[in-house]
C-alpha cells in the first residue's frame, strides 16, 4: 500500500511538538484563579497520629482527613481468597504507615507560599517500630502495619507442580537472590489540576496518568460522586512506567479541594516527593534451589519468594500483583518437570510498590537466569549451552508450560543463537584465555525471557480486582474533508501511539498517517479503556482501531461504489481512495458527499454515517508472548568494583512490528532502565523505615554516559491470535538487563569465586565481594 502502514518505520508524529518543547504537560498548564497545594508528609515510617495543628492565621488553608467531608478511603479490592484489604485514606487518618505519607494538605497562591505554610503545621505523632525488612515483617511479633490484620501478609500463595524433593538429582544448587527497591523516575513526576466546571457541573481533573478511565472509577468511588460528574483528562504525559497507572491519593485531595474551594487547584510532585513518598517498585527476595542432571538439564525448581509490597494496595490494584505473578511466571521460557513456589506479598512501612515496566518479570528473570548460570557452573558447562538445552523448542509450540501459560509461537533457542553470534561468543571465549592489557576482567552474560503481554479477561477476572480488561474499543470519524479522527481510551506517554495507531488506520483505510489524529487520554472524548499498561496497546488498541476502520471501510466503500456506479463488492479501498475496475473516488469526495451533498448518497446508505465505534479482543486473550535474549559483555575493574558495559546485544521477537523504529526505541529505553536496575538504582531504608535517597544525587539513574549503544536484532514470528500478528513488547527491554549483566560480571570473576546475586551491583557491593573472596582464598 502506501508504505506507511503496518511495518513501516515512519517518523513519530508526536515528536514535532515534543522535541520542540511545545508539548503541554501539567506543569505547563495554568488556570485563572488557580491555587497550588503542598502536602505535609509524615516524617516517620510508622506512628499514631495524635494531632495535626496549624496556626490560627492559616487554619483555612490547611486540611486534614477529617476536614475532607464526603471523602472516603481508597479501597483497592481483590477477590483472591485470603487477600487482606488495606484502606488508604488520601490524608492519613489515625495512623501513618510510611515516611512521606500525606497527612495534611495546604494551599496558597503559589507552591512556595504553600510550602511556607506547610512548615508551620505541627504534627504530633507517636512513633511506632517500623517494618523495614519484609522478611522480618513476616516473623511473629513484628509490629502490625494494619492493626486489624493478624499478620503483615497481603497474600500468601503456593504453586506446586509435581514437586518432590529430587534429592537424587546430580546437581542441586541453592542461591539467595534479590532485587533492591527502586523508584521509577520518569522525567515528569505526577501532577494534576482539579477544576470545577460550573456549566457542565463536572469535576475536571487534568492529571498525568496512564489510565484516565480507571482514575475516574476510583475518584467516583472515593468521593461518592456519579461518574457523569467527573471528567479525567491526561494531557501530554512525560513517561509513566506504571507510576501513573494508579489513582494517587494526591489526585483525590486535589479533586476534593477544587470542589470545596470552587477554584482550580494544582499539585505538581517534586523529585523529592517522587523518590521518597511515591514511585517505589521492584523489591523482591528469593530463596531458590534448582535441580538438574549432570549435563545441565533442568529437572526442577523450588522457590520461596517475598515481595515487599509496602503499606497499602494502591487503586486499582498493586499489593499482590507481583507476588502472585511470581508464582506463575518464574519458570520463564524453560521446559522442566517439577516446580514449587511459595510466595508472600508482604505489607511493610514503606511506600506502596507499584507495577514498574516489566512488572514482576524483572525480578523473576533475575532469579531464574542467575539459577541457569549457577547450574552451568555446577555442571562445568557454558551457560549459553545450558540455556539452549533447557529453553522451550520451536517444535513444542504452541506450548503450555508447567504453570499452564500458553506460549503462542516463537523460536527461543534461535534468539539465543543469534544473540551469541552477534556479540561474538566464540571470540570472547578466546579473548578470556589471556589477560586484558588494562588488567580488567571481561565477562559475557546472557538472559532469555518471555514477556506475556496484552493479557485479557480470562487472565484477570479471577483476581477480582477493579480493573479487568474486556473488549477494547476505538471510535473513528471521517471528517467532511476526508481526514480521520481516531479516538481511543488508553493514553500515550512515550509509546508513540499517535503514530502507530495512525499507521494501523492507514493500513486499513489508506489515509495518510499525517491526516489521522489520534485522540486519547480523555474520558469525555473516547471510549472506555483500562488504559495503557501490560504491553497491551499495540495488540488491544491496535486491534480496536483496525476493527473500527474496517467497519468504516465498508460504509465508505458502499458510498464510493455508488458514486462509481458499481456495487460494493466490485470496489476496494486503498491509498485514500475507493477504486473500481474503471475509476476511483477519494475519501474526501465520499466524505463530502455524506456531509455536504447527501442528495447524492445511495438510497440504501447506512444512516449511521461515517462515524462509529467498534471493539476488539484477540481470539485467544491469555496474552501474546514476545521474547528476547540479551547478551552483555562487561569489563570489571577488580580494584574498584566498577563495571563497564563494553557491548550489549538484544535479539527480540515481537511478532509483526507496526513500526520497527518505535520498537527499537522501546527496547533502548527499557534496556537503559534495566541497566539502572542492574548497576545503579536503589532506594535504601534505615531501620526506622526512613528512605535514604531523597534526591537524584543519592538515587543514581544511568545517564547517556552509562548506557551503551544497544545493538538490536529482530526475529518475526507472528502471533496467530492478534490482528496483524503483533505482540506486546513495551516492557521487555527492562526485564533482562539485570540478569544478563550480573551473569556477565559473574562470568568475568568466576575464577575468583565471586558470584553477585543482589541488584544493583554497585561498585561497593562488588568490591566488598571481591575482597571477601580474596580473604577466603588467602586462608
Amino acid at each position, binding site marked *: 500500500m502506501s508504505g506507511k502502514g503496518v511495518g513501516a518505520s515512519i517518523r513519530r508524529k508526536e515528536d514535532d511538538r515534543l522535541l520542540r518543547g511545545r508539548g503541554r504537560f501539567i506543569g505547563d498548564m495554568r488556570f485563572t484563579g488557580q491555587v497550588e497545594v503542598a502536602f505535609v508528609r509524615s516524617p516517620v515510617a510508622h506512628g499514631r497520629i495524635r494531632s495535626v495543628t496549624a496556626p490560627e492565621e492559616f487554619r483555612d488553608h490547611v486540611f486534614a482527613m477529617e476536614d475532607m467531608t464526603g471523602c472516603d478511603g481508597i479501597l483497592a479490592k481483590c477477590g483472591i481468597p485470603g487477600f487482606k484489604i488495606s484502606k488508604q485514606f488520601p490524608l492519613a487518618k489515625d495512623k501513618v504507615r510510611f515516611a512521606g505519607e500525606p497527612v495534611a494538605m495546604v494551599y496558597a497562591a*503559589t*507552591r*512556595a507560599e504553600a*510550602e*511556607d505554610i506547610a*512548615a508551620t503545621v505541627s504534627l504530633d505523632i507517636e512513633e511506632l517500630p517500623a517494618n523495614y525488612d519484609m522478611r522480618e515483617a513476616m516473623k511473629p511479633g513484628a509490629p502490625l502495619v494494619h492493626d486489624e490484620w493478624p499478620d503483615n501478609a497481603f497474600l500468601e500463595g503456593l504453586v506446586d507442580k509435581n514437586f518432590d524433593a529430587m534429592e537424587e538429582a546430580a546437581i542441586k544448587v541453592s542461591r539467595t537472590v534479590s532485587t533492591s527497591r527502586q523508584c521509577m523516575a520518569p522525567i515528569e513526576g505526577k501532577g494534576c489540576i482539579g477544576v470545577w466546571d460550573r456549566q457542565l457541573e463536572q469535576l475536571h481533573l487534568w492529571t498525568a496518568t496512564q489510565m484516565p478511565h480507571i482514575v475516574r472509577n476510583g475518584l467516583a468511588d472515593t468521593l461518592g460522586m456519579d461518574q457523569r460528574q467527573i471528567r479525567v483528562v491526561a494531557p501530554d504525559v512525560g513517561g509513566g512506567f506504571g507510576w501513573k497507572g494508579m489513582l494517587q491519593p494526591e489526585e483525590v485531595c486535589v479533586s476534593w479541594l477544587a470542589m470545596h474551594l470552587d477554584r482550580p487547584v494544582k499539585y505538581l510532585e*517534586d523529585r*523529592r516527593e517522587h523518590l521518597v513518598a511515591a514511585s517505589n517498585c521492584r523489591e523482591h527476595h528469593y530463596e531458590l534451589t534448582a535441580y538438574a542432571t549432570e549435563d545441565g538439564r533442568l529437572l526442577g525448581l523450588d522457590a520461596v519468594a517475598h515481595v515487599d509490597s509496602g503499606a497499602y494496595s494502591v487503586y486499582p490494584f498493586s499489593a499482590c500483583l507481583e507476588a502472585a505473578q511470581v508464582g506463575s511466571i518464574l519458570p520463564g521460557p524453560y521446559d522442566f518437570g517439577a516446580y514449587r513456589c511459595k510466595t508472600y506479598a508482604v505489607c511493610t512501612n514503606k511506600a506502596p510498590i507499584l507495577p514498574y515496566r516489566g512488572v514482576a518479570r524483572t525480578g523473576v528473570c533475575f532469579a531464574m537466569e542467575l539459577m541457569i548460570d549457577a547450574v552451568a557452573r555446577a555442571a562445568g558447562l557454558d551457560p549459553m549451552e545450558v540455556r539452549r538445552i533447557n529453553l522451550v523448542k520451536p517444535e513444542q509450540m504452541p506450548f503450555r508450560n508447567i504453570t499452564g501459560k500458553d506460549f503462542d509461537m516463537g523460536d527461543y533457542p534461535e534468539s539465543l543463537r543469534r544473540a551469541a553470534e552477534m556479540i561474538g561468543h566464540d571470540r570472547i571465549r578466546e579473548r578470556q584465555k589471556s589477560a586484558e592489557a588494562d588488567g580488567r576482567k571481561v565477562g559475557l552474560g546472557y538472559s532469555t525471557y518471555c514477556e506475556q503481554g496484552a493479557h485479557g479477561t480470562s487472565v484477570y477476572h479471577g483476581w477480582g480486582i477493579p480493573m479487568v480488561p474486556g473488549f477494547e474499543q476505538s471510535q473513528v470519524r471521517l471528517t467532511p474533508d476526508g481526514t480521520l479522527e481516531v479516538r481511543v481510551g488508553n493514553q500515550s506517554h512515550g509509546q508513540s501511539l499517535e503514530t502507530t495507531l495512525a499507521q494501523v488506520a492507514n493500513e486499513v483505510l489508506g489515509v495518510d498517517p499525517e491526516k489521522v489524529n489520534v485522540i486519547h487520554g480523555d474520558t469525555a472524548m473516547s471510549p472506555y479503556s483500562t488504559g495503557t499498561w501490560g504491553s497491551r496497546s499495540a495488540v488491544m488498541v491496535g486491534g480496536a482501531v483496525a476493527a473500527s476502520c474496517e467497519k468504516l471501510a465498508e460504509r465508505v466503500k458502499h458510498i464510493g461504489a455508488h458514486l462509481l456506479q458499481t456495487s460494493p463488492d466490485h470496489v476496494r479501498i486503498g491509498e485514500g481512495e475507493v477504486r473500481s475496475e474503471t475509476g476511483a473516488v477519494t475519501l474526501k469526495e465520499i466524505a463530502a458527499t455524506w456531509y455536504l451533498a447527501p442528495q447524492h448518497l445511495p438510497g440504501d446508505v447506512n444512516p449511521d454515517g461515517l462515524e462509529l465505534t467498534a471493539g476488539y479482543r484477540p481470539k485467544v486473550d491469555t496474552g501474546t508472548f514476545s521474547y528476547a535474549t540479551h547478551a552483555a559483555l562487561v569489563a570489571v575493574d577488580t*580494584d*574498584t*568494583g*566498577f563495571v563497564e558495559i563494553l557491548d550489549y546485544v538484544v535479539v527480540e521477537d515481537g511478532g509483526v512490528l507496526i513500526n520497527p523504529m518505535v520498537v527499537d526505541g522501546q527496547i533502548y529505553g527499557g534496556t537503559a532502565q534495566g541497566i539502572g536496575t542492574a548497576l*545503579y538504582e536503589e532506594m535504601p531504608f534505615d531501620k526506622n523505615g526512613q528512605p535514604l535517597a531523597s*534526591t537524584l*544525587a543519592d538515587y*543514581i*539513574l*544511568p*545517564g*547517556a*554516559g*552509562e548506557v551503551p549503544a544497544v545493538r538490536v536484532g529482530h526475529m518475526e514470528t507472528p502471533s496467530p491470535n492478534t490482528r496483524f500478528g503483533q505482540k506486546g513488547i513495551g516492557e521487555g527491554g527492562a526485564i533482562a538487563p539485570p540478569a544478563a549483566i550480573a551473569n556477565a560480571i559473574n562470568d568475568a570473576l568466576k575464577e575468583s569465586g565471586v558470584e553477585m546475586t543482589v541488584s544493583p551491583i*554497585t*561498585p*561497593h557491593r562488588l*568490591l*566488598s565481594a571481591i*575482597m571477601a573472596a580474596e580473604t577466603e582464598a588467602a586462608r
Partner: protein
Amino acid sequence: MKAGRFDLLLAKDVGEAVKALQTEDAKAASGFQSLGPMLNLRLAQPRLIVNLTRIPELSAVEETADMVVYGAAVTHAAIEDGRVPDAAGGALARVASGIAYRAVRNRGTIGGSLAHADPAADWPTALTALGAKVRVAGPRGVRRAPVAGFVRGAFAPALGEGEVIVAVEVPKASAAARFGYVKFCRKVGEFAEAMAAAFHDPDTGVTRLAVGATEAPPQLLEGDFADLDARLATLDLGADPVRQRLHRTAARRAMAEATTGIAA
C-alpha cells in the same frame, strides 16, 4: 520544593559584599550550583543573598611570571574551554571538564567550589596538589592562605564572618611537570566516590599527592614516595575497608600517572 523567601543583593564591589555579609543570616552566592539546591530543599534559608558574580574583579584573570591568578567567579566552563590561561599545562582544563555536567560548569565557579568545601569536590583536591593559594577579602582586608588546609571539614571552609574568596593563585608548572588525576564516579558528572590528584615536577623535585572524597578534608602528602603504600597507610581513609581500597587505588593510579618508576 521551592526556596523560602530571601532578599537578593547584586554586589558591585568587594567592599559592598563584605559589608552586606556581616548582616544577620546573609550568605554569599556565585554560580548557585551548590547553593541553589540547598535553597530549594530549604536546607539553607538565608534572609539575604549577596551575589558576587557581578563584581568585575572576581571575573578577572591575571598572569604573572610564576603564577596565574583566577578571579573567584571564573567558571569551570571558562577554564575547561581554555578561555583563560592554564597554569599547569592543561591540568586545570582537565579537572574542570570532569566536574558535573556542562550546564553546571557554565555557572559553577572555582571560588564557589572552594567555599562550599565539599570534600568530594574537584577543586579542593586538585588545587591542593597543585600548591595553589586562595585570596580572601574580609572586614580586616585581604589575606592569602594555601588551598591545602582551607577545607577544614565537610562544608566547613576556613572563612571568617564577612569573608569572601576573591581569587585563586595557581603557581605555574614547569614544562616537565606531570599531573595525575583519578576519580571514581558512579556515573559521569556525579560527585566522586574516591579521588586523587598527584603532581610531580622532575625539575624542582616537588611531588605532591592529594587524596579527596573521603569524609575528611582533602589530605596532602609531600616529599618521598619511594614506599607509596606506607605513605598511604598514614591517611585517614575512613572506617570502611572497601572505601579504603577505592581511595588507595585512586591514589596509586594518580601517582603512577604523574611519575615514572613508582609502581601503581
